[in-house]
């Protein structure tokens, strides 16, 4: 398995919950809180379910709560991929 990128995250989020309210999936949004991008808890739960299914990893609910920005989400998923 290769690494999980910001673009991968963006693709899942857009499919699950629509395009972000500001900006594109580049480094400028990496540290923006998800709520500023227009994604609420339902969007993140839905995206985490889909990512978990695609990559065959389990993302616990508590971990989803801790993912405040795209950077933390991408880092979490990559850590899980390495560990898996």
């Amino acid at each position, binding site marked *: 398995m290769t690494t999980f990128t910001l673009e991968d995250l963006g693709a899942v989020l857009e499919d699950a*919950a*629509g395009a972000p309210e500001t900006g594109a999936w580049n480094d400028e949004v990496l540290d923006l809180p998800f709520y500023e991008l227009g*994604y609420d808890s339902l969007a993140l739960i*839905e995206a985490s*379910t889909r990512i978990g299914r695609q990559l065959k990893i389990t993302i616990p609910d508590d971990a989803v709560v801790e993912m405040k920005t795209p950077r933390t989400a991408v880092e979490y998923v990559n850590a899980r991929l390495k560990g898996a």
Partner: protein
Amino acid sequence: MIAAGTAVVTGMDVVAPTGIGVEEHWAATLAGTPAIGPIERFDASGYPVRLAGEVRGFDETVLVPPRLVPQTDRMTQFALAAAEGALNDSALDLSTVPEFERAVVTANSSGGFEFGQRELENLWSRGSDYVGAYQSIAWFYAANTGQVSIRHGFKGNCGVVATEQAGGLDAAGQARRVLRNGARVVLTGGTDASLCPWGFITQLRTGLLSTRTDPSRAYLPFDADANGFLPGEGGAMLVMEPYDSATTRGARIYGALTGYACGFDPPPGSGRPPVLARVARRALDDAGLGPGDVDVVFADAVGTPELDRAEASAIREVFRRPVPVAAPKALTGRLYAGGAVLDLVTALLCLRDQVIPAAAGVRVDPRLDIDLVTGAPRPAAISTVLVLARGYGGFTAAAVLSHPGKDR
């Protein structure tokens, strides 16, 4: 004279088979442009009914905020688009209205059925993990009111009424109550969109749908050849305000909801008469008007011989004179929760332009003895319209709309 607290309509928008936007709908309605055609949203070739009034050219990526598209059914996308259009049309500056004095009241008949079919398919063909997070908020009957309330910051006494095809009038009646209880503005209306296979087959089973394949001869209310109706999708939203605050802010007023009443038919086989005539009289009483004041009646126009006979008989019983009757539904099919709301919009446009649209293509059954406007639109002096609606099972409602500037 319209009394100070009377509910008046100051904004409206339409998403209907006849068009997206009030003027497009009105132009198509006056022109008698048929909006019923072969179903394109899904493959209906295996079903005994293959026609419907579909909304064409609705681009949700333009008309609905992008973040709301994946979490809403088509019915809610219609509601969001129409609510925004109606608010814009009203030119109301929402910042002047306290949040708790703005409310949303919609009618709904069947919920987000297409969204629901997709999620049911996910569940049953792939497993429970595949049911999406938005199923919980997209399919239920309150989705339209909730999403519109959130979108525009309406925190007042919101509501959702389900009385099948009478719902549009019952929502307007409820909106009027909310205004009487102190709200300053209510967004009201209804939209439905059950044109997916799963939503469609439930309608097939009623036996009320027309199985004809010629779009111009399929849904013919009050015609000797009436043989059922066709379903449609869409609806409309209205902005309602009390007359005094609407005039104070210099709003354009389409008309006033001066009367409303509802009732319910006795069970089949009871031998008791249907309630339509009584409900129509009560709505007129409520408006302080009599049958002689009504210039046009918008009929419910189901298009089955039995229900058309019952409606014609109620109209004759109430009016005892040849009153003009309009059935613009003949162009669109029946839009469920959206149908009677669309009739309210069309009736308000009658008041504005002093013309009654025709049920194009209908040749009225002379035995019904009603003055249905057919062929071409009929110019008329119109200051009062009575709108009738009936919902499956016996729900019955009537609304009276009055011209804002005409004193009788």
